[in-house]
């Protein structure tokens, strides 16, 4: 049935077009033969096709446009007719003889246009007459199109300033008056459209009332530009200066907007006003414009309207620094802020997302226009908190998005987390986010810090920052752990790690405080986080240690809080926390790092302690053979660089390392490890071990107890091994072995201390 309706409409449109074309044909013939009377007759008949009630606005528009084209030809004819001596006044009367009002008024507008051009009467009189006469068409669609035609033919003939139609009697006021009146009438018709049923459609009972209403609303919005066009025309009138806009244009337009009490119209027209008139006018009439907002229907989407306005004003402010004083002068911020408050108050049913997006717009505005006024920013956030207070966490995804936008805006603007940290309401707004979003926001904050490489330099700020990103630092209540995406989690925690590196203060004392704060917070993070967060903390602390080490002389004294010793103590405890993760390998590395740092600080005992811890870990926690290999190499490497240990300590550690090396599971690993251990000895210059011999170790299984007899034994062993069939001959190994033997031989021949030493070895 519905499709039937559409098909019918097509048919009606086709009929309308056919009728129109036929009469247009006769009209053309009359025009060609200069037959005025017939031309009027056929043009009226042609225009009668526009009297239909059966077409939807869309289809009606089609018909209208065709008639419009024909009327242009008729207008040309009228113009020529007046040149031929036909009085325009007579012509103006003649067209009014038409019995039907719609064709009559179309013709009247057409002649009226020629009339104004002829300047035989003041433009304002003709315009006033036309706009008054058009009242005769009260049918919404037909009236809208008729008045739209009037607007179209008159727009280049308004007595604007500088226009040829301006005269003593015709001023821009008349032009404004005309457009305003046409606008008012059109808007009334447009609003009334919702009560109008097209008979053909209305009769089909198959469509429910809701559907019918929806359809009508759709049809209405198709026509809105006809109404809005008037505002556009107004905005094009050059003679409208600020005073006139303030005293006449805006009050009249707003009066119509408020009084029409129609949701669709109010929203569209407010938007139109904001879009078509210049920004400086908006700024100067802000109070009036905003005053209208709470008077609109409660269902009107004011937030979008206001957002648009603030957006425009922000852009305006950004366009040039010269306009900023204007903003201050009119107290734009407080006006907007008040208006938003009132709107939110007036529209009780506005969803949370609505009010928040209003605050977002206001914030954007504030940031653009008053970047120096942090108190404004905080005020906006405070208002938002107030609005949200008493509500649970926000579930609505759109609202959440808006809050994120709200919170991101200051970060983007200032590029300085320090500013955000000063905003007392900032974390309070964040509290209203759900956990997931809270984290996202926290990441955004961190990214902002990273992007701008801004240092956070005091413990207080760090404290505040951790308050902001607490979603990342610890499990918030009610987060189901299993829902976490591992990759996201890693990403998040890595960013926390990066963040920790951004904390820096030149003053070691303050830095220590920062570190303590960080430590306090990250230790609350639970096992899964520690692995990510502890290392950066440790390194950050070690950095501090090294800094202190540089200025050793100054820091002596018991009352200094920031001594390396204390820091190491702190570090020790922190690393211990890793054991609960458990992440022994990581802890081990960190111990070694610390040991090395302690080494550099000449703190033997501390270093020894760290090593001890490392060994304990190795012994007790590291079970995997591969991990063991890595660990032992790390231990050896670190140990090798140590230079503060006394002989005893060193021996103990070295032997322990060598011992562990020898106990590795696989022979090649053992071999490599033991070889590495040999560095330890070499570093001590023990027994004058030379490179060549270490190469020996590299290839063969062996024992670090290097004496000549042992080497002798080794050589024999190698020889036997190589000669036995079960080992594949390796040319390079053979060559190397040969070289080594040759080397030993050479040492013997050389004699001296070395020679004697090697004498014992028999190849």
């Amino acid at each position, binding site marked *: 049935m519905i499709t039937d309706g559409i098909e019918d409409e097509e048919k009606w449109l086709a009929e309308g077009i056919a009728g129109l074309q036929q009469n247009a044909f006769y009209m053309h013939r009359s025009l060609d033969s200069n037959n005025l009377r017939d031309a009027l007759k056929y043009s009226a008949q042609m225009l009668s096709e526009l009297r239909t009630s059966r077409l939807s606005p869309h289809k009606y528009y089609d018909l209208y446009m065709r008639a419009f084209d024909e009327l242009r030809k008729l207008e040309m004819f009228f113009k020529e007719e007046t040149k031929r001596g036909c009085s325009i006044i007579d012509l103006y009367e003649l067209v009014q003889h038409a019995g039907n009002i719609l064709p009559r008024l179309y013709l009247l507008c057409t002649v009226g246009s020629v009339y104004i051009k002829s300047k035989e009467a003041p433009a304002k009189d003709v315009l006033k007459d036309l706009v008054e006469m058009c009242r005769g068409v*009260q*049918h919404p669609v037909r009236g809208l199109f008729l008045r739209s035609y009037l607007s179209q033919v008159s727009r280049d003939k308004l007595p604007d300033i500088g226009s040829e139609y301006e005269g003593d009697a015709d001023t821009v006021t008349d032009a404004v008056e005309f457009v305003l009146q046409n606008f008012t009438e059109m808007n009334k018709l447009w609003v009334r459209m919702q009560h109008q049923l097209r008979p053909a459609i209305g009769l089909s009972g198959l469509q429910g009332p809701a559907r019918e209403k929806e359809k009508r609303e759709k049809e209405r919005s198709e026509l809105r530009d006809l109404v809005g066009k008037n505002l556009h025309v107004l905005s094009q009138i050059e003679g409208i200066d600020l005073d006139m806009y303030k005293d006449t244009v805006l009050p009249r337009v707003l009066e119509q907007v408020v009084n029409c009490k129609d949701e669709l119209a109010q929203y569209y027209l407010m938007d139109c006003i904001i879009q078509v008139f210049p920004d400086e006018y908006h700024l100067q009439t802000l109070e009036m414009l905003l005053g209208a907002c709470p008077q609109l229907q409660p269902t009107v989407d004011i937030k979008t309207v206001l957002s648009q306005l603030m957006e425009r004003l922000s852009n305006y402010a950004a366009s040039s620094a010269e306009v900023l004083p204007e903003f201050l002068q009119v107290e734009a911020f407080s006006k907007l802020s008040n208006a938003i408050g009132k709107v939110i108050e007036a529209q009780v049913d506005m969803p949370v997302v609505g009010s928040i997006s209003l605050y977002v717009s206001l914030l954007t505005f504030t940031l653009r226009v008053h970047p120096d006024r942090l108190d404004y920013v905080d005020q906006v956030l405070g208002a938002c908190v107030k609005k949200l207070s008493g509500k649970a966490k926000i579930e609505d995804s759109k609202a959440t998005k808006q809050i994120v936008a709200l919170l991101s805006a200051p970060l983007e603007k200032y590029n300085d987390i320090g500013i955000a940290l000063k905003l007392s309401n900032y974390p309070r707004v964040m509290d209203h986010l759900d956990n997931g979003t809270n984290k996202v926001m926290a990441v955004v904050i961190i990214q902002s810090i990273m992007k701008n490489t801004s240092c956070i330099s005091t413990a207080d700020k760090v404290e505040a920052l951790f308050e902001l990103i607490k979603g990342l630092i610890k499990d918030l209540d009610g987060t189901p752990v299993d829902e976490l995406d591992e990759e996201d989690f890693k990403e998040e925690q890595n960013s926390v790690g990066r963040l920790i590196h951004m904390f820096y203060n030149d003053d070691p004392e303050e830095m220590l405080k920062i570190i303590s704060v960080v430590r306090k917070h990250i230790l609350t993070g639970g096992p899964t986080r520690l692995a990510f967060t502890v290392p950066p903390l440790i390194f950050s602390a070690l950095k501090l240690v090294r800094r202190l080490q540089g200025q050793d002389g100054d820091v002596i004294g018991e009352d200094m809080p920031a001594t390396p010793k204390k820091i190491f103590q702190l570090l020790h405890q922190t690393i211990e926390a890793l054991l609960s993760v458990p992440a022994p390998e990581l802890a081990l590395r960190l111990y070694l790092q610390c040991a090395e740092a302690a080494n550099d600080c000449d703190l033997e005992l501390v270093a020894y302690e760290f090593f001890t811890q490392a060994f304990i870990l190795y012994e007790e926690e590291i079970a995997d053979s591969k991990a063991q290999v890595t660990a032992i190499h790390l231990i050896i490497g670190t140990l090798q660089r140590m230079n503060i240990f006394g002989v005893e300590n060193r021996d103990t550690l070295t032997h322990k390392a060598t011992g562990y090396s020898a106990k590795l599971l696989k022979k090649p690993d053992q071999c490599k490890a033991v070889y590495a251990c040999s560095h330890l000895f070499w570093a001590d210059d023990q027994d004058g071990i030379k490179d060549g011999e270490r190469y020996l170790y590299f290839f063969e299984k062996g024992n670090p107890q290097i004496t000549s007899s042992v080497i002798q034994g080794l050589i024999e062993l190698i020889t036997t091994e190589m000669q036995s069939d079960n080992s594949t001959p390796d040319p390079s190994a053979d060559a190397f072995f040969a070289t080594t033997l040759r080397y030993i031989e050479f040492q013997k021949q050389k004699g001296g201390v070395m020679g004697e030493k090697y004498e014992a070895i028999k190849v």
Partner: protein
Amino acid sequence: MNYIIGAFKSPCNISITLADGRTRKQVPLKKENGQMTKVPLFQSQENIAGEVSIEPIQGKKLEHTGVKIELLGQIEMYFDRGNFYDFTSLVRELDVPGDLYEKKTYPFEFSTVEMPYESYNGINVRLRYVLKVTVSRNYVSNIVEYQDFVVRNYTPVPSINNSIKMEVGIEDCLHIEFEYNKSKYHLKDVILGKIYFLLVRIKIKNMELEVRRRESTGSGPSTYVETETLAKFELMDGAPVRGESIPIRLFLSPYELTPTYRNINNKFNVKYYLNLVLVDEEDRRYFKQQEITIYRLQETS
């Protein structure tokens, strides 16, 4: 055959020529056979002068018992066909009885003729003026020739001409207030006014203004009333809302109106009315009729 026809042919040609025939304004008049013809236009108190020429058919003698010219003002009721009522009758004798051998011309004049009524062609009644030349004869019928002319009388601009203003309505349904700027309009006048909607509870489809002519003839029980709608002029398209005011501007010139005629010789009346009609979506008509007076204003040009 030609000969036989010739026997019934008028034995002479009569023509009536007005003295100022060339300069006098001619207006169209519908003849009885329906054809339009141009006839001279007069008004009351004018002199009607000219000459009548009678020319017998070549070579024939025309015997007559006298020639006269009459100026007649007649009212003809169609329901009483053939019965003329002469309200004006003036006679001029042109010739004494005798014979006519050749063309003869007689001057005539009716000076300051009182012609109080205008020529009128209605539905049931006709008022006409005619010059009638009669050549009287013995034994055979008289030879008669007519010359119609039209009389129009002009009225000065009325000194009192109030507007018509009225509030009408149907309780709780429709209340309107309408205003016509005058109560007396001349024939080329324009009716201005407005309709103000005080209450609208019906779905109005459109509104029109009709100009109606009411012609009543006869008197007493045998009065015939005919009403004609001369103009149907759409004032409004669509449904107005409360507070809406719709302008009226109706040019009367395109319509064939006459002045209002009141009690013409006790025979007939012609009155004009403005009828405001509102049509609702069920095509019900709501209307209010107001009489207006139409008069003929002297054209200055």
